[in-house]
Structures are given as structure tokens and as C-alpha cells.
């Protein structure tokens, strides 16, 4: 009598299962790590893009401003020049930096800020404006922004700082 052996042995099945499980775990880990890195790269690029947008708008208003006021203990900024007046204000409840602008001669800064300066996908968890050399021709605003972004697999907070020089001489005279 001849015994036919056509199936798998127990050892073969166990080894195959073990190999499949190990490979599946490795593949899943690799997939998650790739997706996490993609989210991390996206989050960081969003943060720097939004910070750059905010800085560039604020830089333009500060450079040409005749009057600069820091309000709300450093959480807001008002600028005035002959043609336009700006208000930038951090809204704690929505975690956003908002602004408003009035374009007219002899304007005053708006009392409410209602437009978003950056994308809603990014939270602004802290804003700090600081005015240096108030009475000097080198009036400078230092600005610090803490930006936070949530992605499905990655969330991050990053601080960005920038310095903007006001190019208008307060006294209107030659500063040198």
C-alpha cells in the first residue's frame, strides 16, 4: 500500500504563515511610515507657506506706515499711512490672525478685524508683536507666530519670527 503525499505538512504551513505575518507587519509599518512622512512634509510646507504669506502682508504695511501701534498686549497691530489703515488682531477663540483694511485719505485703523490672514487649515496658537526704537527712525516691529497644523497622521507646532523695519521717518526729517 502506497501512501500518497500531495498536501502541505504542518511545518510548511506554520512557516508559511509566520513568513506572511512578518511580511504583512513589515509592509504595514512601511506604508504607515511613508504616509506619516508625507503628512509631516505637507504639514511643514503648509506652516512655512502660511508664515511667509502673513509676514509678506505685514511687512508691506509696516514699511510704509506713518503710525504703528501695538495693541492688546502685543496680540494686535495697527498701522496708519495717508492712504490706508490696517488692523491685525489675533482671535483666540478661532485661533486665527485676522485683519481689516480701510483705504481712504486721513483714515483711522478699523475697529474690527474680520478677514483671515492665513488658511483655516493652520491654527495660530500665539502671536506677539513688539515695537522697538519707538521714537527713532529705525522703528522696528518684531513678530513671532506660533503655527499649528493637524494632518491625519502628523500634527506639529512651529514658531516663526521675523523683523520688519519701518522705512518712514517719524519726524519726517533727515535722520542721519
Amino acid at each position, binding site marked *: 500500500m502506497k501512501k500518497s503525499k500531495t498536501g502541505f505538512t504542518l511545518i510548511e504551513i506554520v512557516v508559511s504563515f509566520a513568513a506572511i505575518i512578518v511580511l504583512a507587519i513589515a509592509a504595514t509599518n512601511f506604508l504607515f511610515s511613508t504616509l506619516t512622512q508625507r503628512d509631516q512634509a505637507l504639514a511643514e510646507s503648509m506652516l512655512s507657506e502660511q508664515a511667509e504669506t502673513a509676514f509678506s502682508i505685514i511687512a508691506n504695511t509696516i514699511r510704509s506706515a506713518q503710525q504703528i501701534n501695538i495693541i492688546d498686549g502685543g496680540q494686535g497691530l495697527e498701522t496708519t499711512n495717508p492712504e490706508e489703515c490696517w488692523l491685525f488682531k489675533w482671535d483666540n477663540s478661532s485661533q486665527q490672525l485676522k485683519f481689516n483694511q480701510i483705504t481712504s485719505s486721513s483714515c483711522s485703523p478699523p475697529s474690527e478685524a474680520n478677514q483671515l490672514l492665513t488658511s483655516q487649515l493652520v491654527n495660530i496658537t500665539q502671536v506677539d508683536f513688539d515695537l522697538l526704537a519707538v521714537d527713532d527712525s529705525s522703528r522696528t516691529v518684531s513678530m513671532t507666530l506660533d503655527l499649528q497644523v493637524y494632518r491625519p497622521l502628523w500634527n506639529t507646532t512651529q514658531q516663526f519670527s521675523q523683523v520688519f*523695519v519701518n522705512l518712514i521717518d517719524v519726524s519726517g526729517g533727515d535722520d542721519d
Partner: protein
Amino acid sequence: MNNLKFKSSGFTLVEVLVAITLFVTLIAGLIGLTQLSVKSTAASKFRVQAKNILQQTIETVMAVRASNFSNLNEGIFHPEIVSDKWSLVSGTETIDSIERWVEISRVQREISCGGERVCLVVDSGGVVDPVTFKAKAVVSWQENGQDQQEELESFLTFWR
């Protein structure tokens, strides 16, 4: 006579070795790719930070120039807040592993420029302009063991 025949239905040693080599090569490639991606993400974050510091540095030089042109001198400096104003202090400064400095140098202009009020800046062979400096802001950092450097230049004149 019994014909003893040994039937081998499994893999040969060569097949197994080739399969293992392929598998290992594939895994090594994937791991390498992941590491590259991690490094490039970290490097890009560092580069953004360096760019910010660079922009900040040149801006503070403009503030020093705006405050008083006669405060400017040739040399290597870094910006610092002194008595609520930006000042240039000798030497370099390191912020979060990024070294920054400003090189301030005199510039030369063409000796003659055909009646133009302001002659062009030349690298050499001109006359030193007493009312213009060149400011070169530099940030330097290490990325994957290699030195990286970014620069931003601006002319600082007596006129605003």
C-alpha cells in the same frame, strides 16, 4: 532490483539564494528610500528656518542703517538688541545650530561715469564711495554632515 529514485520537489539552493538576494535588495532599497525622505524633510525644515534667520538679519542691518548711518563700520557683525534698538555687535552668532553674521564692506564706484550723478559700483579699480556700504548677511549650517550656506546682499547708502 529496486530502483531507488530520490525525487526532489522543493527549491534548489540556487533558487533560494536568488530569492533571498532579491528580497534583501528590495527591502534595502525601500529602507534607503525612507531614510532619504526623513532626511530631506528634516533638511527642508532647517532650510526654511535658515532663510527666516537670513531675512531677519538683513532686516536688522537696515534698521541699524536707518537709525544712524555713521554707526556702520567695516567688519563682521551680528545683530543684537541694545537699549531697545538693533545694533551690530562684533563676531558671529549661533541660533538653533544656524550660525549667522553680516559682512560689512566698503564699495568702489567707477572713477568717471559721463556726467551721471551716481556712478556704478565696480569690484576693483574704482574710488571708494564714502557714503555706501555693502552688507552681506550669511547663514551657515550643517546638513547631513555637509556645510550649507545662504547669503543675501544689500547696499546701504547715506540716502534712505
